[in-house]
């Protein structure tokens, strides 16, 4: 029985990484923020606003990677369209920020965003109504991706669309949205998207303090989502999800309505992606249809694979690492960074089949066996 309890306290899906992760994440966040706000710019420890914004962006990507990992790593649903949920969340936030511009737009129109003025639109389309209220917009940032995920998932999982069929359909979904959002008629600013934001909840988006606050909020939400997801996945529901990944039909034969599990997990994941998108937009300052591009969605999957799918921490690490590498590579070797990135993907797949976390696991196992052996010898 004690062994059993031990198993439950440190079992496979249990959150032994959770506490260190949350501590490190929040610790780094607070330190970086303080360094940015309170240290003089010429101090050696000063963290520039550029870095803060960059970190904030990485954390959004980490959140997005979590979303992808939850359904891919744990439930085996490879979504090649998660960028769509991310972008929809982003658009909701973008619409709110756009409305906040008010009459400070280039045409000085108090009601209409600039792009509508120059397309000669006379009134706000219905789907823009209410987006000037922060909470309503934030609600939309989770409801719209969630609803899309629900409808899509409900259709697809109920019809038992699985495997590559599902993956390619998610890709088709995001691709269709990409084309649609490019159209000026859609009322989302076409290719230029939404940009030139001024303030959020009355705080100047340009101000360092606002940027730091956004960064901290992102970190906190990431921590919360991480912990909640960890809890969900280590509950029995998490086991069912793994069972579905293993053998969906067997799960049905022991009485689980797998389609419902998949739908809800998909919705959950889409909502996380939506939140990530909503946090991303004020920090990078623009949202446009490019975020729907299928390549983006594929990249997300790759972050997760690099970090190690099926572990939440792996997804986060993968997202941070790949994006950091991208930032560095594009600056160090602008002409050749794709070689480096491509090679990194290939090498990780070949030599780290379970991603970086798999490597960590192997090292752990080695250390354990080494430790176990010593006393015997």
């Amino acid at each position: 029985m004690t062994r059993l309890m031990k198993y439950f306290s440190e079992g496979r899906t249990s959150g032994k990484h959770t506490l260190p992760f949350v501590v490190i994440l929040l610790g780094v966040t607070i330190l970086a923020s303080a360094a940015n706000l309170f240290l003089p710019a010429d101090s050696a420890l000063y963290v520039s606003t550029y870095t803060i914004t960059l970190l904030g962006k990485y954390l959004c990507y980490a959140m997005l990677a979590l979303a992808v990992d939850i359904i891919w790593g744990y439930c085996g649903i490879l979504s090649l369209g998660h960028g769509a949920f991310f972008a929809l969340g982003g658009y909701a936030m973008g619409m709110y920020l756009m409305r906040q511009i008010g009459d400070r737009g280039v045409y000085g129109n108090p009601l209409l965003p600039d792009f509508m003025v120059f397309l000669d639109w006379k009134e706000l389309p219905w789907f823009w109504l209410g987006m000037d209220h922060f909470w309503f917009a934030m609600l939309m940032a989770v409801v719209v991706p969630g609803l899309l995920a629900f409808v899509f998932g409900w259709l697809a999982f109920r019809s038992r669309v699985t495997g590559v069929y599902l993956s390619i359909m998610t890709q088709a979904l995001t691709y269709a949205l990409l084309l649609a959002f490019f159209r000026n008629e859609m009322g989302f600013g076409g290719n230029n998207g939404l940009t030139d934001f001024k303030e959020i909840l009355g705080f100047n988006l340009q101000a360092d303090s606002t940027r730091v606050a956004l960064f901290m909020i992102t970190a906190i939400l990431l921590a919360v989502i991480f912990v909640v997801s960890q809890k969900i996945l280590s509950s029995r529901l998490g086991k069912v999800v793994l069972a579905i990944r293993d053998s969906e039909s067997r799960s049905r034969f022991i009485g689980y309505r797998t389609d419902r599990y998949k739908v809800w997990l998909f919705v959950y994941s889409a909502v996380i992606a939506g939140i990530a998108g909503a946090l991303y937009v004020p920090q990078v300052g623009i949202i446009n249809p490019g975020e729907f591009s299928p390549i983006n969605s594929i990249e997300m999957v790759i972050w997760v694979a690099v970090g190690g799918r099926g572990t939440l921490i792996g997804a986060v690490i993968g997202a941070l690492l790949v994006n950091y590498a991208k930032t560095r590579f594009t600056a160090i070797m602008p002409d050749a960074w794709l070689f480096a990135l491509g090679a990194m993907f290939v090498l990780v797949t070949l030599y780290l089949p379970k991603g970086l976390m798999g490597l960590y696991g192997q090292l752990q196992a080695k250390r354990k066996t080494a430790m176990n052996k010593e006393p015997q010898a």
Partner: protein
Amino acid sequence: MTLRRIPLRRITLRHCMALCCCLFGLFSLPSVAVESTSLDPLLADLVDAKISKMVPILDKIEKASDETVLPLFRTLLNGDLYYIKSTKQVVGQFDTNGETFYKDVFTGQANPALTKRDVKKIRVNNTLRGYLRNAIARIQLTSKKPSVRESAVRELLSKLDDDTVDILESLYPNETNKKVKQAMGLALAMNTASQTQLAVSNRIAAIDTLADSLENDVRNLLTTLSRDENPAIQSASNAALDTIAQRANRFAFVDQLFFGLSLGSVLLLASIGLAITFGVMGVINMAHGEMIMLGAYTTYVVQLIMPNYIDYSIWVAIPAAFLVSGLMGVLIERLVIRHLHGRPLETLLATFGISLILQQLVRTIFSPLNRQVSTPSWMSGSWEINPVLSLTLNRLYILAFALLVFIALVIILKKTSLGLNVRAVSQNRNMAKAMGVKTNWVDAMTFGLGSGIAGIAGVALSQLTNVGPNLGQAYIIDSFMVVVFGGVGNLLGTLVAAFTLGIATKFLEPTTGAVLAAIIVLVFIILFIQKRPKGLFPQKGRAAE
């Protein structure tokens, strides 16, 4: 202004032979000794004239001579007419085997002493080109070749000025060739119909005969006539227009169908290699597009190597592209994919990395700019079935080519042991080994085959679109869509899916526009997959679960 056809581009099968002979004759066998001296002052004027003042001079030249002036007009039309700076004498510039040299336009006598420095180009613009075409046509009305005469008449339909009509009237009674006579009749009928001073009954009779024609010029004329003061003319014209519209619509449908088939053939070519690497082997091959790209670049390199044999370059490019992409495929398989057996999702990651590397590789080697791939002359132009229906030759060839590749592939997979072995390996690698299947070899060959076919697709695509580092990215999504829509692992499914999507898109486009059509097709696929979760041709049975 209406649409005229350009003789060179208008290759009806009938005309093709005749034209070739004609051109051959013009450039290499100047059979007529020309009294060019009479033209010399005019030519001197021409050399000095500003572009906007050239038409009257050309007019004089045309009047002052006969068929013998054709080479001059042609050379000018092609922008190859130069004059020697010192003497103001005109010469034609010719390119043979990459070398430029100059010939007397009339005698064809080469003038090896001239270099680029000695000559200056006589400029032409669109107005002038339009004029030249008509002039050439007028001259050709008396050509010995009936086919040349016919196209000359048709060329002139839109420019029926009094002069032309006079010439036609004088030529008409003596014309012996039925087709030419018909064309001339048409022109004269058009003239009759538009002459307001003629008797209404004559005009109506003329209009009635026009109803048989699909020529644009005729329709333009009828449209004008349908606004004629005389109600009888109006209704006759409208009736004629209706008849024409009905026929034209039928052809428009065929046209659209052809567009659909053509788009389908492109999709088929792009996805067929993937149907093997992904569909049969189960490798989520994100580098598939780059295999296509390599094929296209191979075409470019082949043309670079043999710039004087563009017409034959394709025949070298096809096997070369197959080899280049195929070998690259084998290399990738041996170095990477081989280690990922049983981990299909990881192949996505690795091949994505490979695709980035390959893209950057061509960017580094060939620059990020698009490369120019020329179309062989036998592939350019279109096959004009009638004035409203013409099929572009390159698309026609590509359609046939796609089907050929497909059939060849089916035969390879059905008739050799490779097809059976690869399926066995993909279903149970270990057991296949235990049955003596050389799995390593099979893997390499299959991946090589799929990649090689992608390379061949690249050759075809180089004829239609840009050859640049992004070429592959443009097709990868479509390719996956086609394979999945057709049903993974089913070649026939890929074929049907490609053509279905192609035709659907092309029938939607006119009403919805290209963007919405693309969206609608995507949504359709998503919904369709709900109905048939395993594509058009699903793998059925217990084992498929």
